[in-house]
C-alpha cells in the first residue's frame, strides 16, 4: 500500500486570480441555483423531492475543477456544483427537476441526469452501484491507453453498501484511473456516521483496498481542489485509485421535506454555519486582493440574472407527452 499519510497537508497548487474568481462563481452559482430550486419546490413547480448540498459546495466545485478535458464524472445527489463546473447549464437542471420534456423527457428525478457528450454518468437512487460503473469507465480509458480519469462521489452512508465495496476493490485490483470522493457530511438521512461504522475517518476504508486514503477539509475549496488534482494526476500516471474523504456537514435535512433539527444536535448547525465554505472563500479572496465586496455584489447580481433567464427558459419547456413514454426502452430494435 502506498505510504500516503491520510492527513498529509494538501499539496500546494498555484491558482491564478481568474481561476479563483471562477471557483467563487461556481460556488455561488451552485448555492443560488439550489436556493432557487427550493423556492420552486415550495411554489409547487417541482413535483418530486429536492436534495440540497448547502455548505458542501466546496467539495463538488473544488473536485470538479480539478478534472481535465475528456475526464468523466458521476455526481450523486448533492453534487449540483460538479454538474455546473462541467458545463451542465442551470436551466437544464431546473427543467429536469420540474419534470419537463428537456433535457431527458421528464423520465427521472432532478439529479438523475447524464450526458454522454460531457462524460457525465447519471446516478440512480439505489446507492453503491455507481462506483463500479465509474470504475468501468476508468477501465475503458486504461484499455485504450488514454490518460483520462473517472471521478465519482459517495456519501458517508453509501460506504456501507456492498456494491460500493465491490466497486472500490475492483478499481484497486485493476489499478484503474479512478478517484472517489467520500463526502462525509456526518449524516446519512437521520443516521450519524457512528451508527454506520466504527470508524472515525472514512478514509481508513481505503486501507482495505491497498489504495491511498486522504482526509481533506471539505469546506476549503482550494484544499479539495488540490488533493483531487493530486489524486487525478496519480491516476493519470497509472498509479491507480485514490479515496478522498472530504469532511463537511449537511446543514439542511436529508431532503427539503425533512427537518433535521429533530435529530441533529443544534450546536452542530451553529458551528458549521460559521465554517461556511463560501463565506470562508469570499473572505480569503478579499483578504488576498483577488476580489472586493463590490466585486462579490456584482457577481451575485450577475448570477441572479443568469438564473432568472434559466428559470424562464425552464418554465417554458413543455411537459412530456404521454406518447413519449414507451420510446427508447431499447437503443436498438
Amino acid at each position, binding site marked *: 500500500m502506498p505510504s500516503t499519510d491520510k492527513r498529509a497537508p494538501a499539496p500546494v497548487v498555484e491558482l491564478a486570480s481568474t481561476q479563483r474568481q471562477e471557483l467563487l462563481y461556481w460556488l455561488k452559482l451552485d448555492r443560488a441555483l439550489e436556493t432557487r430550486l427550493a423556492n420552486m419546490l415550495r411554489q409547487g413547480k417541482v*413535483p*418530486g423531492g429536492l436534495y440540497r448540498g448547502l455548505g458542501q459546495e466546496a467539495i463538488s466545485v473544488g473536485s470538479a475543477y480539478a478534472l481535465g478535458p475528456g475526464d468523466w464524472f458521476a455526481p450523486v445527489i448533492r453534487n449540483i456544483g460538479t454538474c455546473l463546473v462541467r458545463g451542465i447549464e442551470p436551466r437544464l437542471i431546473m427543467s429536469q427537476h420540474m*419534470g*419537463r*420534456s428537456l433535457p431527458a*423527457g*421528464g*423520465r*427521472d*428525478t432532478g439529479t*438523475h441526469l447524464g450526458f454522454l457528450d460531457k462524460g457525465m454518468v447519471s446516478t*440512480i*437512487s*439505489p*446507492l*453503491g452501484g455507481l462506483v463500479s460503473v465509474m470504475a468501468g469507465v476508468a477501465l475503458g480509458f486504461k484499455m485504450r491507453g488514454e490518460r483520462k480519469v473517472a471521478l465519482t462521489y459517495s456519501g458517508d*452512508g*453509501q460506504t*456501507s*453498501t*456492498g*456494491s460500493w465495496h465491490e466497486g472500490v476493490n475492483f478499481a484497486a485490483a485493476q489499478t484503474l484511473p479512478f478517484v472517489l470522493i467520500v463526502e462525509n457530511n456526518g449524516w*446519512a*438521512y*437521520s*443516521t450519524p456516521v457512528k*451508527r*454506520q*461504522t466504527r470508524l472515525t475517518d472514512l478514509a481508513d476504508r481505503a486501507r482495505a483496498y491497498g489504495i491511498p486514503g486522504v482526509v481533506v477539509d471539505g469546506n476549503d475549496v482550494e484544499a479539495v481542489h488540490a488533493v483531487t488534482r493530486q489524486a487525478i494526476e496519480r491516476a493519470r500516471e497509472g498509479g491507480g485509485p485514490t479515496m478522498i474523504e472530504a469532511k463537511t456537514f449537511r446543514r439542511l435535512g436529508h431532503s427539503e421535506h425533512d427537518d433535521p433539527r*429533530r*435529530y441533529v444536535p443544534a450546536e452542530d448547525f451553529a458551528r458549521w454555519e460559521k465554517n461556511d465554505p463560501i463565506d470562508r472563500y469570499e473572505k480569503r479572496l478579499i483578504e488576498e486582493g483577488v476580489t472586493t465586496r463590490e466585486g462579490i455584489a456584482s457577481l451575485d447580481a450577475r448570477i441572479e440574472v443568469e438564473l432568472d433567464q434559466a428559470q424562464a427558459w425552464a418554465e417554458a419547456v413543455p*411537459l*412530456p*407527452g*404521454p406518447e*413519449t*413514454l*414507451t420510446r427508447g*426502452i431499447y437503443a436498438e430494435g
Partner: protein
Amino acid sequence: MALMTYLEAIRQGMWEEMEKDERVFLLGEDIGVYGGAFKVTAGFLEKFGETRVIDTPISEAAIVGAAMGAALNGMRPVAEMQFIDFIACAFDQLTHMVSSTHWRWGAPVPMVVRGPCGGGVHGGPFHSQNMEAYFFHTPGLKIVEPATAYDAKGLIKAAIRDDDPVLYFEHKYLYRRIKEEVPDHDYVVPIGKAALRREGTDVSVITYGSMVHTALESATGLEAEGVQVEVVDLRTLLPLDEEAILASAAKTGKIVVLHEDRRRGGIGGEISAIITEKAFEYLDGPVVRVASLDTPVPYSPPLEEAFMPNAAKLTKAIKELVNY
C-alpha cells in the same frame, strides 16, 4: 374499534406484537430516532428501546441476512426496506439464502421484510416500484399486500407470527389516504386467503393492493350501466388463493386481472395462466390484464398518469370484455 389509517394500522399491528412477544424486534435504516422515512415506526424507539429498534447501516443485504440469523436464533425480526425498491439489493439473500433454508435443512426462518411500494407520488423510477413479481418465482417466500387498514393490521400480525419468511408490501399511496374502523383487539388476517370485496355476476376483477380501490371505483361506476363486477382482493400473493380465483372465474367466466405493477412478467401472467389451465371450460372470453406499461416508473406527472392503471382504463377493459 378506532378509526385509523392504513399506516396507523400497520403501526398498531407491529406495536401489539412487540408488546406481546419480546422476540419481535425491528431493524432498518432510519427507523429509530427518525421513525422511518414514512413514520411507520415513529415512537417505537421510545417505547421499546434501542435493543429492539435497530438503526442499521445502509446495507439491505446485511439487514436481511442479519434478520435471518436472528430468526434462526430464536428471534422474530421485522426488517424495513426504506423504499421497497431497495429490496433489489437483498435479492440474492432473499431468493437464495432465506427462501431455501427450511426446505434445505429444516430450519424455520420466521422473519418479515416490509416496506413501502407503489407509485402515484412522483417518486420516479426507484421510489415507486412494485417488486412482487421478482420474488413470486421463488419457493419458500410468502408475499402479502394489504389493501385496507383492517388487513394491514391483521396481515402484519399474521406475518410476524408466521414461521416462514414473509414479504409485506405496503402501498405508500394508501398510507394516509384510506381510513377505516379497525378493532383494537388482537386479530389476524390469515395468510393465503383472498377476500371477496364485491360480489358480481358479469365479470371478475382479480387484484390486490391499492388497485382494489381502483377496481371498486370502476365497479361502482359500471353498476349504473348495469354491469355487475365482482372484485377479488388477493391479499396474499404467495401462496396464491387459487380456490378463490377459480371460484370467481367459474362464476363470471370473464376475468380481468389488474395490478399496478408492470404488465410483462407481472404476477398477472401467472394468474391468467392458472385460470386458463384450470377453468378453461368456464371462460366466456379471454383473461384480460390491466397493468402498468412496460417501462420504468416515470417521474413527470403526465407520464406517470399514462403509465399506471386507473379506473377509466379498467372500466374500458371491463366493457370490452363484457361485450366480447
